[in-house]
């Protein structure tokens, strides 16, 4: 490792033994399975010698640069880091050069929770991505959790820096291996300089025996654009939290996502967008489909700070409940301390439209297929604007239907 222990890491290591985990009283953790969270065990990352099932079949096959992290350690053999495009720097966190220290030591405004302290302490592996120029190749980071005997949960970090006026598409696919209990704790830190733009996609698809805890902190400078796309599909408890801070005028954050729950899954999205400067815009648009006894959580906040005049924000959360036992908890939050602000939000919870089903059946389409078409139609709208056809195809395949 070319770096000494980062100051933030040593502080975290000191804290880690005395941490108290979030409880039901923490609004952002209200629907988390607190007991099972306590059964996750963390520790320093160590290469795993566990035999890995074929991961290629579990991830989209993108052509561009690829970095694979297994249990918090970069797997050079599975990665593809040769011949990076000009303007793309993609290195293992452990190998990050000293000049990246400031990127790694970035301080985020949003308070650390216990799992982000754990991430600071043990998340020594992962990716540091620095972008300049207009990048057309999609960069792919794959995180694989393989519960081990020593510890069942892994931590890793993805640090993304997009230089002024530059743009890129980055996909983070998060999967797991095996069928024992465990999980992953992945923290992504994104910084967009002025006029930068990033499409950032998370494909969360851990096995249903595992837990995924994702946290994404974003800082956006003037006129930068973030397009964050979340496909929260796997895990027993699959959680992704976004804290997006619009620090300068004209920044635009567009977040959307789809969660699709089966069985006993709980899929939890926690979003906070802070409008910290005038004339920024933000969009949050999430859809959930919940079958069986699954639970969806959508907690979306817009925080308009003093002076952030001219803020324009919209939030929507639409849900389809396919079973009587499925549940959705949807909570928009708004705090407005500025003037001339337009903030809209709406949430819907519905069942399959009986009239639409009848209409389709009257055209000869069997009931079951009609339901499937309706569900897919609802879900597919969340992938309409994805840049990568490969990613879109992967999602539709994963959801069990061929693309139209």
């Amino acid at each position, binding site marked *: 490792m070319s770096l000494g222990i980062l100051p933030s890491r040593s502080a975290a290591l000191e804290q880690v033994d005395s941490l108290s985990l979030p409880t039901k009283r923490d609004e952002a953790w209200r629907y988390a399975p607190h007991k099972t969270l306590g059964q996750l065990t963390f520790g320093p990352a160590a290469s795993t010698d566990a035999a890995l099932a074929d991961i290629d079949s579990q991830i989209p096959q993108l052509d561009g640069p690829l970095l694979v992290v297994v249990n918090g350690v970069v797997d050079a053999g599975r990665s593809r880091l040769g011949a990076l495009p000009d303007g793309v720097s993609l290195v293992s966190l452990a190998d990050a050069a000293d000049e990246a220290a400031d990127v790694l030591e970035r301080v985020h405004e949003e308070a650390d929770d216990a799992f982000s302290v754990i991430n600071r302490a043990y998340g020594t592996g992962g990716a540091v991505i620095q972008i300049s120029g207009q990048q057309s190749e999609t960069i792919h980071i794959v995180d694989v959790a393989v519960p081990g005997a020593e510890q069942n949960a892994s931590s890793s970090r993805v640090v993304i820096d997009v230089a002024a006026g530059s743009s890129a598409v980055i996909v983070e696919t998060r999967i797991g291996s095996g069928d024992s209990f465990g999980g992953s704790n992945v923290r992504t830190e994104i910084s967009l300089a002025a006029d930068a733009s990033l499409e950032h996609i998370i494909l969360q698809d851990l096995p249903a025996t595992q837990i995924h805890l994702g946290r994404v902190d974003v800082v956006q400078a003037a006129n930068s654009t973030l397009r964050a796309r979340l496909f929260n599909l796997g895990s027993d408890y699959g959680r992704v939290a976004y804290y997006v801070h619009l620090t300068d005028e004209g920044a635009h954050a567009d977040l959307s996502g789809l969660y699709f729950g089966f069985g006993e899954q709980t899929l939890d999205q926690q979003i906070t967008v802070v409008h910290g400067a005038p004339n920024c815009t933000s969009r949050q648009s999430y859809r959930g489909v919940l079958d069986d006894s699954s639970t969806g959580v959508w907690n979306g906040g817009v925080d308009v700070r003093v002076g952030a005049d001219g803020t324009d924000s919209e939030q929507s959360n639409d849900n389809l409940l396919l079973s009587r036992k499925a549940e959705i908890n949807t909570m928009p939050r708004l705090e407005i301390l500025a003037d001339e602000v337009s903030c809209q939000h709406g949430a819907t919870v519905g069942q399959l*439209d*009986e*009239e*639409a089903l*009848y*209409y*389709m*059946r*009257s*055209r*000869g*389409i*069997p*009931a079951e*297929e009609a339901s499937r*078409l*309706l569900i*897919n*139609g*609802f*879900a*597919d*709208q969340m992938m309409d604007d994805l840049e990568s056809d490969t990613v879109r195809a992967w999602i539709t395949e994963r959801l069990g239907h061929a693309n*139209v």
Partner: protein
Amino acid sequence: MLHVEKLTASIGDTPILKGLDLAVGAGEVHAIMGPNGSGKSTFAHALAGRDGYEIGGTVTLDGADLLEMEPEARAAAGVFMGFQYPVEIPGVNNMYFLRTAVNSVRRTLGEDEIGARDFLKVAEQAMELVEMKKDFLYRSVNAGFSGGEKKRNEILQMAVMQPRLAVLDETDSGLDIDALRVVAKGVNSLRGPERSMIVITHYQRLLDYIKPDFVHVLVEGKIVESGDHTLALHLEENGYAGFVNHDLDDAPLSGASA
């Protein structure tokens, strides 16, 4: 071909169809007219198989008992209903919907499915017939379509499905003059010895374009008068007053003290 005998339909305790009799022969076009709320759409839905009615009586198509069948089975048996209020289906591509419909029926009938490319030709022909712009094929089913566009889309579906019995529920309502001509053209081009049609309308105007073999007047859940196309002209002149009164004369006076 279609035989309807003593058809009753009620919702909860409210009877809506009260013993409707109708026989439609192969190749015939029957128009049904009647005041608002008389049960015309209910009749159409009873034929198409909508849930939620208490149904009595018999309905057979080519001898097969329609009332026993699920809506999709009725479609496979050749029933097509053009909805008075076509349903919007966001996120489901019109072309994909049409192809799935056609192939579902084919599968049920044990026929080979049509591939995407061959189907495109079929769809494009039908689009031409109803003078719809191509991009409608790639939009979500009826989503954001204007009232008239939705009705054209119904005729498009009918043209693609080639039903044995088409029941068109106020397909002419809300159409401008050109659209009316287009819809009529679509209907007329599908007329044939092997296809029967029931055309529900409020306007004799449509019947200038689509000349029916028979016209029926539906009042309070029953057919109270049948005739040829001149009956429609009579209704246009005189309204339903005569029929409604006649019907009320026969009915026990509700609310009146005996």
